[in-house]
């Protein structure tokens, strides 16, 4: 038995972002995986202390270009609680809509990348085509496809017109109809063969390693911060999606059901959308410590914000979902998977490296 070392990354066609896995391999079997990160570390937490708190919204948005809505929501909610203010109801609904749109586009993006990793490129192309419609909807609301800058401290920057809400309904109908194709793929024999039983993470391991988001929910842990009822989620009806597959297929299934759930949540928001102001203005000093947690597409997004009464923040700590999910991924990889399955397993937790390293 020869033990050899394979380095996977940092520049690898499967990952859009650089991460390195050093794999110890016996024949085709991976016995140990060691992640190596730091290729996209910028030092954003320090920049948070140097910038004006209002400008930090744009910085928070650029921690991750895939999920700007949860990042800015977590940041502004933290600053709001330091200031002792609250966003008006309409702003909360708009935030919820943006967060759910973000989740839809992120999950479709993930489904496409999984197809690419499996070797099903047509599926990658088609799913990203559905995603473009979601991006169009986001652009019609905010003016930008990717970084939308909708959140402001005390509310949102832009209101939504009735026309935009009606347009959003149409987009939701389109996305819902396109989900059938994703379901088709889930029923396929080859896809099942590549994902079922691959990358096992039991409930016990998920708890021990601190998995969050769909990775935890696919291992039977009912953990969804939206149930705590922040923003408009308290008014909406939904149940966290939990499955017990504990494998890559389970994580696929969770995300697919969450797509349906998000569409439903957006429809509920459109129906219940209250009227009124969208911004609470305040010049209160930022004093004390606050923890702000938001359910991002990849799981729990954690912001710790400390203010000292001055015009700048003293400390902003960001713990992103992928950072919490790296150790569970190492557990999945080190169970003797095949080298060919490494890309599927890593992608099944939906890595976002630029979040992780900030």
């Amino acid at each position, binding site marked *: 038995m020869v033990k050899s070392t394979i380095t996977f990354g940092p520049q690898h066609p499967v990952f859009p972002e650089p991460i390195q896995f050093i794999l110890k391999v016996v024949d085709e079997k991976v016995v140990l995986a060691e992640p190596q*990160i730091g290729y996209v570390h910028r030092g954003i937490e320090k920049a948070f202390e140097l910038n004006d708190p209002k400008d930090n919204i744009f910085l928070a948005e650029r921690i991750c270009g895939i999920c700007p809505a949860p990042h800015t929501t977590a940041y502004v909610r933290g600053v709001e609680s330091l200031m002792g203010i609250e966003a008006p109801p309409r702003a909360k609904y708009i935030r919820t809509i943006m967060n759910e749109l973000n989740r839809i586009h992120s999950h479709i993006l993930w489904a496409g990348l999984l197809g690419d990793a499996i070797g099903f490129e047509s599926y990658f192309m088609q799913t990203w085509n559905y995603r473009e419609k979601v991006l169009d909807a986001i652009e019609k609301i905010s003016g930008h496809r990717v970084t939308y800058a909708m959140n402001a401290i005390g509310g949102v920057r832009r209101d939504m017109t009735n026309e935009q809400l009606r347009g959003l309904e149409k987009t939701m109908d389109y996305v819902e109809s396109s989900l059938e194709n994703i379901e088709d793929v889930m029923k396929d024999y080859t896809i099942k063969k590549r994902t079922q039983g691959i990358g096992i993470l039991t409930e016990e391991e998920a708890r*021990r*390693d*601190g998995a969050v988001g769909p990775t935890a929910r696919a291992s039977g842990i009912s953990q969804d911060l939206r149930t705590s009822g922040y923003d408009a989620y308290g008014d909406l009806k939904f149940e966290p999606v939990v499955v017990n597959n504990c494998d890559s297929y389970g994580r696929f299934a969770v995300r697919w059901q969450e797509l349906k759930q998000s569409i439903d949540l957006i429809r509920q928001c459109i129906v219940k959308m209250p009227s009124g102001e969208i911004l609470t203005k305040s010049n209160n000093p930022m004093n004390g410590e606050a923890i702000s947690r938001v359910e991002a597409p990849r799981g729990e997004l954690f912001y*710790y914000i*400390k203010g000292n009464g001055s015009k700048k923040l003293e400390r902003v700590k960001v713990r992103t979902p992928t950072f919490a999910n790296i*150790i569970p991924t190492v557990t999945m990889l080190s169970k003797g998977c095949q080298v060919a399955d490494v890309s599927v397993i890593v992608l099944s937790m939906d890595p976002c490296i630029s979040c992780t390293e900030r």
Partner: protein
Amino acid sequence: MQNEIQVNSATLIGETLKMLEAKMRFATATCLDIGDHFEIIYHFDNGNEMKHLRLSFKDGEEVPSIRALYACARFIESEIVDLFGVKISGVSAGLLLGSDSPVAPMRKSAPAKSEVN
């Protein structure tokens, strides 16, 4: 903060063990540079509420690692060692920063970038 317990290097492991027995998930740890001393806040979550352990220590003091109790603390502690240059037993730097990166850049005394270039 609510549900906060002050700990020191001697009592940290014992308090963490209580969290583990209560089946709390270790969310993350935040390191703070408070001028004359450092603080690490360990955040735990059980789905309904969060609990925090606040560890205060002097610069240069070696604090114990909770990796043996929570495996997921591994990267979190490495990051703190990397960015703040504090000492946690058995944890080495080099997770995020390259060999040419500034040393312990998150300390308040570290020069801002404009002063470097």
